[in-house]
């Protein structure tokens, strides 16, 4: 803000809205400020650009949005005074401005300008989980430490064994030196071989090999065990975290992708830890020790030997970046391939019904081709890389030979020293070669780890409160206060006000798409409201622990989902400790008992995928029994009878009547007749409540409900001929 002293009458700012779009929809930053006297528009340097005085009670703000662009209009009775636009990130600020403006206008009309009522701010609590923008990198791998920590003792032991085993493998080349200089070369010069000396060296060779073998076995076993456990821990942790994410997250991810992440990525991390990282550690140790030994034998020869090393390091650095991005793409393409599988296999009936097998095959083929293409690209870099390293090591050997022979000819070193050097660097460069491979696997694993941490870092958008309120002993009165909800850039519910008495039954009606399911999803806290509050007995539901709160809610959906398992398991899903007689009682109340007894193995029959095929109504009654068994205080029925015939509906309806007794019930039904006994009917239209009242009251009103009801009566009286569906709209071209 500029210096307040220079401005004689600085009006207080009631609300400010950062506008980021110009009238012709170009990106342009300005700020709209609401003060008691006027709206003023400021450019970036705080210069007021324009202002609109607030005069007259007929001045209104109209807020709307379409496809990611918000619009705020200042209108009076005759015209639009101003029209401002912004992207949806500014929507909360805009809503706040509208609220402040309305409060201001109300205060004026009530002619009490000094007791300015504090307008309700849009719900700010709990804050939207602020997503951090810090990127994970290869350092992501270090975050795996969180999972390795519990095993640190075993890891340390494994490392000690690695050091010892590596040292043991370095003994044999060292022994070639005396064997050459003290035994073979003197023999060539006519000195007889002494059996005891030879035996001593041979025993040394054997002993070193044996120790290296047994230590190597122990460390591989221990570390493989540990890494398998770390892999399993990562998998479970990721899955558990995933289960706790809100529906939002699942809505935005594809099943195949999530399956790939939890399945193959954790496995890749596991292999990396047990195999590649272990090898790499061994290699580093081996190289360090070799370097020390080489220098202790002959510094000059050692220097020459190590000459290609920096070259190799430089090459590794060069390809690293390219490889990493390449591998990330390989992963993504791979999950596209699995996505197609998880798309089509559950929908196989549709595929076959429309004979689209060939088309799905083609789709899979295309994804595979894309997969090949990207792999080819990575392999092009990769394939060049590995032979280059090998070539460099060959070059290194050549240099050592040349320099060594020259040194021997000069008498500076013995043949034994040269032999030892050649034996050492044979191993050394072999390790170099395998070490360079670590680059690619590390990058691959880092990419995998990143995708795992993508899940782990995702905070639930339905956050747990820090200090949850106790839930016990509440009568379950639900009240919704100015509730609004939006999905991305689409406003779905607006300004919902609703009070539900404990134990009463509320029916939600409205056209399909009017927001009924969304409303009950909010009440069940599958999502959090974007504005306003939902209260249970006066406490914001966001102050309860999510799981404890959901335990109070029984949910029966249009499409009942049964898990693979027995009928009894499915009924007892919400309460696995339920006794058999509890289960039977619930099934009886749900009118499911009799048909269950007809199944070949009764309550022990398998249902769900690959299990016993049940009809829609039968599955629905099992899911009602499931809801009954947890004895919920709040019951939500979302079109529980929509997909069944009238006969089954009557049976389900009877089951539901048992379920409803004594609970706060919110029922959505397509057939209005099923809601006649509701204590209150709420009519939704385009995300707003348009009418509330009892059945007969609403009918008497001759409003929305009346029309819905009439339409259904007519529908039942005379079946709708098919072609009337296309009547109505006039057409531009005939």
């Amino acid at each position, binding site marked *: 803000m500029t210096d307040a002293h220079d401005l004689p009458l600085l009006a207080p700012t009631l609300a400010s809205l950062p506008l980021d*779009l110009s009238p012709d*929809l*170009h*990106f*342009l930053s300005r700020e709209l400020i609401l003060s008691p006297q006027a709206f003023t528009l400021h450019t970036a340097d705080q210069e007021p650009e324009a202002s609109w005085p607030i005069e007259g009670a007929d001045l209104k703000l109209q807020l709307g949005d*379409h*496809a*990611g*662009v918000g*619009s705020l*209009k200042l*209108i009076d009775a*005759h*015209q*639009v005074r101003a*029209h401002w636009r912004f*992207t*949806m*990130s500014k*929507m909360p600020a805009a809503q706040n401005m509208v609220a402040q403006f309305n409060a201001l206008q109300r205060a004026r009309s009530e002619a009490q300008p000094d007791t300015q009522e504090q307008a309700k701010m849009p719900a700010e609590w709990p804050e939207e989980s602020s*997503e951090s*923008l*810090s*990127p*994970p*990198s290869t350092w992501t791998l270090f975050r795996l430490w969180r999972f390795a920590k519990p095993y640190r003792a075993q890891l340390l032991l494994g490392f000690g064994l690695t050091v010892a085993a590596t040292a043991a493998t370095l003994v044999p080349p060292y022994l070639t030196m005396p064997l050459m200089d003290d035994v073979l070369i003197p023999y060539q010069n006519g000195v007889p071989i002494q059996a005891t000396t030879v035996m001593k060296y041979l025993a040394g060779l054997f002993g070193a090999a044996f120790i290296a073998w047994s230590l190597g076995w122990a460390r591989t076993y221990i570390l493989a065990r540990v890494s398998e456990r770390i892999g399993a821990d990562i998998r479970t942790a990721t899955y558990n975290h995933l289960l706790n994410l809100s529906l939002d997250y699942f809505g*935005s*991810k*594809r099943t195949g*992708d999530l399956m790939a992440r939890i399945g193959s990525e954790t496995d890749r991390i596991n292999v990396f830890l047990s195999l590649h990282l272990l090898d790499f550690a061994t290699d580093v140790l081996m190289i360090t020790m070799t370097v020390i030994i080489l220098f202790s034998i002959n510094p000059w020869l050692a220097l020459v030997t190590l000459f290609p090393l920096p070259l190799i390091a430089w090459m590794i650095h060069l390809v690293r970046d390219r490889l990493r*991005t390449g591998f*990330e*793409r390989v992963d*993504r393409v791979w999950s596209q391939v699995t996505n197609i599988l998880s798309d089509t296999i559950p929908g196989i009936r549709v595929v076959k019904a429309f004979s689209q097998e060939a088309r799905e095959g083609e789709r899979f083929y295309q994804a595979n081709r894309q997969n090949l293409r990207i792999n080819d690209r990575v392999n092009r870099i990769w394939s060049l890389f590995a032979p280059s390293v090998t070539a460099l090591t060959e070059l290194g050997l050549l240099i050592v030979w040349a320099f060594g022979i020259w040194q021997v000819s000069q008498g500076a070193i013995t043949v034994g020293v040269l032999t030892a050097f050649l034996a050492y660097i044979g191993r050394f460069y072999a390790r170099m070669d395998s070490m360079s491979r670590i680059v690619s696997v590390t990058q691959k694993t880092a990419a995998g780890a*990143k995708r795992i941490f*993508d899940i782990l870092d995702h905070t639930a958008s339905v956050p747990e409160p820090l200090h949850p309120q106790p839930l016990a002993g509440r009568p379950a009165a639900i009240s919704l206060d100015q509730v609004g909800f939006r999905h*991305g*850039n*689409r406003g779905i519910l607006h300004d919902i006000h609703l009070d539900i008495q404990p134990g009463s039954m509320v029916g939600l009606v409205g056209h399909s798409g009017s927001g009924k399911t969304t409303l009950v999803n909010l009440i069940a806290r599958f999502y959090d409201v974007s504005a306003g509050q939902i209260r249970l007995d006066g406490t914001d539901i966001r102050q309860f622990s999510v799981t404890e709160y959901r335990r109070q809610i029984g949910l029966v959906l249009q499409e009942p989902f049964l898990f693979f398992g027995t009928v009894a398991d499915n009924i007892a899903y919400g309460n696995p400790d339920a006794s058999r007689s509890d289960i039977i009682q619930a099934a009886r109340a749900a009118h499911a008992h009799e048909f269950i007894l007809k199944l070949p193995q009764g309550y022990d029959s398998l249902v769900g995928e690959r299990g016993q095929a049940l009809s829609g109504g039968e599955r629905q009654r099992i899911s009602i029994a499931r809801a009954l068994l947890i004895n919920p205080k709040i019951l939500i029925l979302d079109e529980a009878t929509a997909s069944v015939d009238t006969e089954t509906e009557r049976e389900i309806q009877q089951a539901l009547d048992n379920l409803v007794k004594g609970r706060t019930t919110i029922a959505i039904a397509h057939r209005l007749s099923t809601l006649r006994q509701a204590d209150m009917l709420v009519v939704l*239209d*385009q995300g707003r409540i348009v009418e509330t009242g009892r059945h007969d009251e609403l009918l008497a009103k001759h409003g929305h409900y009346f029309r819905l009801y009439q339409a259904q009566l007519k529908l039942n009286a005379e079946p709708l001929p098919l072609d009337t569906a296309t009547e*109505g*709209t*006039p*057409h*531009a*071209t*005939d």
Partner: protein
Amino acid sequence: MQLTDRMLTLDPFGTLQLQTGANEAPVDVVPVRAFPLGCPRQFIALVDQQGHERFWIDDLDTLPPETAAQIEANLAQRELIPRILRIRNVSSYATPSRWSLETDHGSAELLLKTEDDIRYLPSGALLITDKFGLPFLIPQQSELDHHSQRLLARFL
């Protein structure tokens, strides 16, 4: 029925009004494209405040030019799909990532929530939706400059 500019008028609030018959009351309508990406100039509905379709236009080009212009002007006021001309830089190669862009609507910022928000259109174009639901379009990847292409490739 042919849509003429007499049937379509602009009220003082800047809303289009449609009057289909001489004795019918005019209704507020908004034009909505059925295929905003695949086929923007054809298949346009005039929809009233309740979301009911009031009029159907097969092809904008068959309308009288003034009427078509009126509809287009209205669409242009509400629709924003900036074309990305250049990606200046990205805050990170891992999502969420903040991109700073040059578009045909001026310089802008895009917050990419996940790579899944990048959608391949059949025409070969890419549609990138930012965290707040604003769509950005890249008509042809190969038409971007080298720097932008390299940044983009990290997310594809």
